[in-house]
């Protein structure tokens, strides 16, 4: 469409900025904003990992005295747990894949000069950054960080008297999340408008790389879900600080009647999980899109079933809004609605399975190159399968009876959402680092990082299935008081030691990242011989992404090993004559 070109020049009417502040701090350039999100997430993930390490130590040695922190009290354990979950889910999994890589590469992959609304983009980052600071502040107020878990169930989260950390710390937690919601909504606005309105000529929807589809669908999910969380947060804040009773019925805390009546704790859960379930898809969809991209590039083979992949992601998105009740099977909802939710939940397993089959189908008959991004992509598939297998157990209410709230659930969501998504972030980093920084990351260190992470995460999370089947409950600061759980301590010890090793391995990545920025081998413009638009432009991309000219797209994004073509990849911008016998 001709307007694409005009729009192209229009949004970049402003020249590249020169001052440090405009270039690196309050930048309007989506590439800089993407990096800002990425480094925010990088900081957050190391904080989150540290918190989990402290938790793991406390679980096996509840009475040990740690340097600086002393002996961890049960409430401290719970606040570590709360902050670990909140930081990881929001500031890592919802930030790096979408805000980080999405911001950087969506405009380039669709052939645009920037996002639709650069000022809004900048604002969304700084609001998210502020949200992170507010969250961290919770550690330092009287009472410390909240202890109600990242899910913040009322009345525990609504009553300052219900525990230490439930005072100012809980208020800051809500404010942080509310700010995060605003940042996410602004970002979603940009992603959706950009994808719909700024594609280059020839970049039809069905020629979009699957990463772009993933970012687009993720943004739609975010648009519909974050408003609900925001609303829930406002209601909770009112219950806590103004005395309303949205979520709190008449309760007696430690002999004192709290001044509430008539509210419904289940209402919080419904609102939270209506957001919370799409949120887990927000966390994983970008990694799925990237995995599709990488298995194709590094098998030198078109993705198996492009259309099916798109429809699968769309159905995951739609169905994702209909399954929230599966988090509430034991909550006191009607057993009939529980059953309805479980049918929908089993249904949503189908598109995920289709995607897995298609990744395997892409590998089949390929010519696989084991680059670091590919290793992490293969690792992603393995972890996704493992995490996915435990889903059908939890999706059936009868089986949820023994398994709900046990470590089986923790194993499930860490594997399928936590670690799989992190592997996506690693894969993305190794893959796009050359384009962003003009250098390659060190190959040996990258592979070492992969092996430690892959084996390590299985060592950490596989045993949690066993612990959970044996009825080992989650959110227990220690197992000392319940005999059958205490007998399972050897499992916990194994997990803790595996965690130490795995976390240590992440420092290899950190070192590699920063060292390679300065001293990595210089990268060509297209070191991976990939076909999508970011590889057609300079390394790193110029301010307007394509150096003044507008790309015109002729081919689909996965034209590898086209018979009769001069080389084993056809760029999306290459003339159509290079493509033999297939319409994209």
């Amino acid at each position: 469409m001709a307007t694409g070109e005009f729009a192209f020049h229009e949004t970049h009417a402003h020249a590249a900025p020169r001052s440090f502040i405009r270039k690196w701090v309050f930048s309007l350039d989506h590439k800089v904003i993407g990096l800002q999100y990425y480094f925010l997430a990088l900081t957050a993930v190391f904080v989150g990992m540290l918190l989990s390490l402290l938790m793991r130590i406390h679980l096996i040695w509840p009475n040990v005295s740690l340097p600086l922190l002393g002996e961890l009290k049960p409430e401290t354990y719970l606040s570590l747990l709360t902050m670990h979950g909140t930081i990881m889910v929001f500031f890592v999994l919802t930030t790096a894949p979408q805000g980080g890589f999405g911001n950087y590469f969506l405009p380039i992959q669709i052939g645009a000069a920037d996002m639709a609304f650069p000022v809004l983009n900048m604002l969304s980052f700084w609001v998210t950054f502020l949200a992170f600071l507010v969250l961290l502040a919770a550690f330092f107020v009287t009472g410390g960080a909240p202890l109600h878990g990242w899910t913040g169930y009322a009345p525990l989260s609504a009553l300052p008297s219900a525990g230490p950390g439930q005072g100012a710390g809980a208020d800051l937690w809500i404010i942080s999340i509310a700010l995060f919601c605003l940042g996410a909504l602004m970002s979603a606005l940009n992603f959706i408008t950009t994808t719909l309105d700024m594609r280059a000529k020839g970049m039809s929807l069905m020629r979009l790389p699957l990463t772009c589809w993933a970012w687009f669908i993720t943004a739609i999910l975010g648009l519909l879900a974050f408003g609900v969380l925001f609303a829930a947060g406002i209601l909770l804040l009112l219950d806590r600080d103004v005395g309303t009773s949205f979520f709190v019925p008449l309760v007696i805390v430690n002999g004192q009647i709290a001044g509430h009546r008539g509210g419904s704790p289940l209402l919080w859960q419904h609102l939270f999980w209506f957001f919370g379930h799409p949120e887990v898809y927000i966390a994983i969809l970008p990694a799925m899109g990237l995995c599709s991209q990488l298995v194709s590039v590094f098998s030198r083979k078109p993705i198996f079933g492009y259309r099916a992949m798109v429809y699968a992601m769309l159905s995951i998105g739609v169905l994702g809004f209909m399954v929230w009740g599966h988090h509430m099977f034991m909550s006191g909802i009607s057993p009939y609605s529980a059953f309805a939710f479980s049918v929908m939940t089993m249904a949503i397993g189908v598109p995920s399975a289709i995607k897995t089959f298609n990744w395997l189908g892409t590998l089949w008959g390929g010519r696989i190159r084991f680059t670091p991004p590919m290793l992490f992509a293969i690792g992603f598939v393995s972890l996704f399968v493992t995490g996915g297998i435990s889903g059908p157990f939890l999706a059936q209410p009868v089986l949820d009876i023994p398994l709900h709230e046990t470590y089986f659930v923790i194993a499930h969501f860490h594997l399928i959402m936590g670690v799989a998504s992190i592997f996506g972030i690693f894969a993305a980093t190794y893959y796009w680092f050359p384009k962003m920084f003009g250098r390659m990351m060190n190959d040996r260190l990258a592979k070492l990082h992969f092996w430690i992470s892959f084996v390590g995460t299985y060592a950490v999370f596989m045993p949690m299935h066993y612990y959970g089947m044996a009825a080992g409950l989650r959110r227990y600061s220690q197992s000392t008081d319940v005999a059958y759980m205490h007998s399972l301590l050897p499992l916990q010890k194994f997990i803790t030691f595996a965690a130490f090793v795995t976390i240590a391995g992440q420092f290899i990545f950190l070192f590699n990242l920063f060292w390679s920025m300065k001293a990595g081998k210089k990268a060509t413009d297209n070191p991976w011989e990939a076909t999508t638009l970011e590889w057609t432009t300079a390394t790193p991309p110029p301010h307007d992404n394509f150096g003044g000219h507008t790309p015109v797209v002729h081919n689909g994004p996965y034209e590898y090993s086209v018979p009769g073509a001069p080389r084993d990849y056809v760029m999306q911008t290459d003339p159509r004559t290079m493509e033999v016998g297939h319409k994209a």
Partner: protein
Amino acid sequence: MGLILLLVIWLITFASAYFFIAKTWWLPTGASAAAAGIDHHFAVTFVLMGIVFVAAQLILGFLAWKYREQKNSRPARYMHGNNTMEVTWTILTFILFVGLNWASEPIWGSERFRAADSRAVQVEVTGMQFQWYFRYPGPDGKFGATKPELVDPSAGGEGALGLDPNDTASKDDVVTGTMFVPVNREVEVILKAHDVIHSFFVPAMRFKQDAVPGLAIRLHFTPITTGDYEIACAELCGLGHYRMHGILKVVSEEEFGTWLAAREAEKQ
């Protein structure tokens, strides 16, 4: 590298599968009437999903090795997919997943869709930070009134529940910190919570339900083996969540009768 990937993935798969099959750590022995059905369905799900797990991982490892790029590798197969295969595996997956769920529906229904037997032993279970209390209605078969103003956790028992001494029905209510039930008779649990959400979980009975303030949730189970069973709180309720546990004692009908009579006698 392809070979190492195959070996590592296969090794992890076999190692994890071993511990699952060997049941090194497994569900506790079932002691309720519902446990057999639940455990059976668990086994069915486990076998089917286990096959999928092992197959998918083995295939992944195999493909990574078989199609590794080598000097004389053929070019990759240029194909965009196969609609027949897509449709086939979509339908098969759908049948597997939805089929499993439909098979579980009768068990869920028998657990939750029907009300308790009229001859069931009624026990009101109240959770509060960080203690479970159990109340039996006494000879009059009625639970007496409670008043929030009278709640005094430090007093334990009747005081913790805020039993109203002026209500005739409450005079014979028995309140204990340990739950006694007779074997082979249905137990109706009326679940309540005073302050935050707790969850009443008895692993051996395959029984779990959140206790929600503002709700009185009625559920039932039937213990079939005598013994002592741990009750653990299964919903984060504050700093004492890890130590909010109790004991469920399943005893013979006679022992239960004796125990209850003794408790009721104390109330006279």
